[in-house]
């Protein structure tokens, strides 16, 4: 369905270009762009994962050689070991250690597919979840009135024919990141996608035919176009396949919201429905109380995160080449632990970028010695890398977006190279 449509469109464009006396280069470029899916060239996919609640970056990826850490986190600091025995951090590079609950990610780091950027955050110093998430998703720190989200603007820069599944959020309502002019689909469960009447499938089937007939011919062009796309999309997805989906290569997803989201994203990628930007989220990172070490609030979330991402990557198999996954969180947490065995709202945190083009096996960014003078407001891991420097590089290099100003209006900083050139 998709393929045929794309070919028709490219044909139409070619005729148009010739008719207008378009140059051969234009012709070739337009045709190749529009026809690329039909030619079997797969599109790049950026998968973004928002960890809501502000992940403790120092707990996820710990500068374990810093003696100050033990002083400031008597209950929370952990030891590292080369062989990542149970209960110890995995020593990544002699300075940083990966939390044991994230051990599923350690092989990916060793294979140099996984990069970590530490000290990432926003230039706006707010410690409000609401404001910080808003700024990270709009991509305009300090400005609330930005109507669109940065991922939607990224979609707008792709510059080629769109599938209805080009931008998909595995949430029931669209996230702020995907607000904007470009069509984006929010669907918590792909099984819900289609004309449906619970318990009366045939009514739905008959009604579906009626709707299709009505929308095909309505005089309102927007409804006509969206209706046509909707029914094409439903056929593309073929829910029977969804129900029977088996992850490949023995991948086992955690039975969690995040696990289910990534499983469905993998499915969409493998079904070649035109997915290019995907969004998922993970909650529960606001660890004010009893954050724990090998076990506890943080470890539970981290295990879900690590295992979900690792399963996703295994499941992708040969499609790994097309995909980059990036995590994000609105800010980090205090260096000091608090009186309840947790940490409070801070500034810099860390993020993960995973992909075969990623400059992996490294901890990028800068983490100073954890002495008060080096900390932000003498208490928080400082933001040494603007999140936009990472997002622009990952989205820009992976999806081929050149214009940083379009992704992040008003930002004049430089990209932090996380994707290998």
């Amino acid at each position, binding site marked *: 369905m998709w393929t045929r449509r794309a070919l028709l469109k490219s044909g139409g464009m070619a005729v148009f270009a010739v008719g207008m006396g378009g140059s051969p280069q234009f012709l070739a470029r337009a045709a190749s762009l529009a026809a690329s899916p039909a030619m079997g060239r797969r599109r790049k996919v950026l998968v973004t994962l928002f960890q*809501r*609640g502000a992940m403790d970056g120092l707990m996820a990826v710990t500068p374990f050689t810093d003696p100050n850490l033990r002083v400031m986190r008597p209950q929370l600091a952990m030891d590292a070991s080369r062989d990542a025995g149970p209960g110890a951090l995995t020593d990544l590079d002699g300075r940083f250690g990966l939390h044991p609950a994230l051990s599923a990610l350690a092989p990916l780091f060793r294979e140099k597919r996984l990069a970590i950027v530490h000290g990432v955050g926003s230039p706006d110093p707010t*410690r*409000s*979840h*609401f404001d910080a998430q*808003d700024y990270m998703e*709009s991509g305009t720190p300090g400005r*609330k*009135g930005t*109507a669109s989200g940065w991922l939607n603007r990224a979609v707008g820069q792709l510059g080629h024919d769109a599938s*209805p599944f080009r931008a998909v959020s*595995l949430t*029931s*309502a669209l996230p702020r990141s995907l*607000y904007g002019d470009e069509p984006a*689909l*929010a669907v918590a*469960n792909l099984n819900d*996608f289609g*004309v*449906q*009447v*619970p318990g*009366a499938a*045939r*009514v*739905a*089937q*008959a*009604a579906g*035919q*009626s*709707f299709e*007939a*009505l929308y095909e011919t*309505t*005089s309102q062009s*927007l409804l006509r176009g*969206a209706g046509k796309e*909707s029914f094409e999309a439903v056929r593309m997805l073929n829910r029977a396949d969804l129900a029977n989906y088996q992850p490949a290569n023995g991948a086992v997803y*955690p*039975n*969690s919201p995040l696990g289910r989201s990534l499983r469905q994203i993998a499915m969409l990628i493998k079904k070649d429905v035109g997915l290019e930007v995907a969004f998922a*989220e993970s*909650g*529960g990172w*606001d*660890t*004010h*109380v*009893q954050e724990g070490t090998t076990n506890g*609030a943080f470890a539970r979330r981290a295990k879900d995160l690590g295992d979900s991402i690792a399963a996703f990557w295994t499941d992708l198999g040969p499609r790994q080449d097309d995909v980059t996954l990036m995590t994000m969180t609105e800010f980090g947490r*205090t260096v000091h632990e*608090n*009186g*309840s065995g947790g940490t*409070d*709202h801070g500034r810099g945190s860390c993020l993960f970028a995973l992909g075969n083009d990623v400059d992996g096996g490294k901890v990028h960014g800068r983490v100073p010695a954890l002495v008060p003078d080096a900390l932000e*407001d003498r208490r928080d891991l400082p933001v040494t890398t603007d999140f936009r420097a990472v997002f622009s590089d990952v989205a820009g290099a992976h999806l081929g977006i050149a214009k940083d100003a379009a992704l992040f209006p008003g930002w004049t900083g430089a990209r932090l190279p996380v994707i290998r050139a």
Partner: protein
Amino acid sequence: MNSRILTGVALGGLIPALWASSMGAAPGALAAPRAQNPAPRRAPLAAKPAPVSLSYDRLPYARAGLSATQAAAHLLDRFAFGARPGDVERVVALGLERWLSQQLAAPAPGPEVERRLAEYSTLTLSPAEVVQRYPNNGQLLRAALDAGVITQAEYQKKDRVALKDRLAQFAQQQGYGRPQELLAETTAQKLIRAVYGEDQLQEALSDFWFNHFNVSWTDNKARLFIPSYERDAIRPHTLGRFRDLLEATAKHPAMLYYLNNAESTAPMPDDARMQLAADTKDASDASATSDAANAVMTDNAAMTLNPAPPAPGRRKALQNPRKALQNPKKTVKKAARGINENYARELMELHTLGVDGGYTQRDVIEVARALTGWTVLPPGPRGNALQRRLARQGSAQNLVVDGLFVFRPDMHDTGAKTVLGQAFPAGGGMEEGERVLDLVANHPATIRHITHQIAVRFVSDTPPKALEDRLARVFSDTHGDLRAVVRALAYSPEFWSSSALRAKVKSPFELAASALRALDADVINPRPVVQWITRMGQPLYAYQPPTGYPDSAKAWVNTGSLLNRMNFGLQLACGRVPGVRLDLLKLNGGHEPESAQAALKTYAPLLLPGRDLTDTLRQLAPVVNDPEFVRKVDAAAPKPAAPGAMTSPDETSTPSNEAMVAPDDAMAPTDAMTAPDTMTPASDSGAAPAARRARRQTNAIRRPNGQASRMNGGGAARRALRNAPAPTQLAEVVGVLLGSPEFQRR
């Protein structure tokens, strides 16, 4: 009937004159020479006569070739949430002009709304009462500690489950509610008012103006004040003066928190900032234990509210929460960092002048400075203590307290300012902010921006310039009388032109309300419909950015949302939307159509009155005539239950219930901004507890007479049960009509 002719007068002369006079009215240094007036970037309003004089004699639909029936249907699509059965005939009989006059007079919502909202317990609460009744987790913990229900030792223990249970029990004993109950009632009342209110125009305008001055439930600080914001700041002014509406929003805690003006302050020395920080902890976040308590109380421990980092003293506070709570000065937050520009910027960019309104970044800063000190008085003892302290400090003579709004002289930047070219001398107080509102409320750019948005909402996504010019003219003539502007809109020929008819695509809220009206549905429990509205892309009261939902067809129509729209119509008609009771046969005088074809012919004009249905009928006739269609639908007829009268099963008996409940339920458990929408359930244990929670909330707002309906015992239901065969085909046809492209438009 009153008749008044507005003759075409040169607009170019009029608005600058008004502009100048509003300037001239200001005393002293404000009476600046004209030359200093800001020059809007765009050209001033067309310096030519308004193209058509307006007569307020007759609504000019006949000239546009419309019958009274067609015109009444159009009027009900724009100034009401669609027609109920018989509405079009009633409006025609009354006279369209009279109906409009009645609506413009802002009638009461009427007995039906009163009856349906009678059991709602939050609608009349003051903001302070809401804060009292819906404590956040920190406040709850404090109360439990104070009452001795929980000991320090228990608080320090790692057994969070036990602690949580104790707190929950305590909350129940105290009669405290969960904030999501407040949201459930707030969204429910919005739907009930739209479906059953007699003040349809006022409700449509409330929807419009709330979105214009958007605040969001996703903001933990603002959320508890949203019911009052709509009730006290928005609704009373929808047919009043724009300037009053603007000030009501500017001074409301919901807006003060949402756009951060509450924390905006003049630069000050560190010690003063620390004191201030202790004072300005927002009203819904009363304690240092708030975060910790949130982590205890919420399953996912996500997204607590605490905009500022804890200072060193905070650690001790957490070790001894009770002590800290008793002495808030010890729980000092990092102080506010001076002015916060967010409100000032959006005031100009979104609320008044518009993005091309000719203001500069310098103006943003100056307006923010003028508005420093406009903040929120914490309800209860903290607010009283603050007032006493300010009185002692001697700044009380300028202190202004109005409800929870407070002007705090100690936060105000008293330096000289220049706002939009106007000089503000040093030493001013609260009146500076009010002067700013005067300035922007009557600015030509504002007039253009506001009247454009009104035209977009009520006429088309691309309204004719002549119409906008005329509305701008009325706005300036009347000094922003919104009733006059809406009236002028209805009496404008452009409102009735063929390019305006059905030009708007309904928002999901409008779609749901109009479908319920068209079916004369009995909404026993609004919550499932509210969840559908979320699914269709419009979580109510929860659009995060201050822009509000975009008002264009494109924003609502895309692949995912369109399928959900079709499904909503279909499932509603098939009795699959819990909490809604229908009697499809009654719409046709109790007669059951003989065939699907007959159902189509009868019900299409009932549901879509005053419209040309040729295309819809032509497309659908062959489909419903197809024997295959009949076979499919008959085969699909639900077996014993779900009789023709479509008494919706209660959600507890709906098989696919959990899938349906899940989406918007995520809003419930989070104290979080993970958003109303996100699927992140409170725990990994899946949807079952989520569904249970949703049911609990549902029960909380179900009215007593809802019980009767669940017995499936309405007269209509019994009649239909006798009327074999069950009209599944009828439900299907009605569902297809509600999901049709024609029904998506207004």
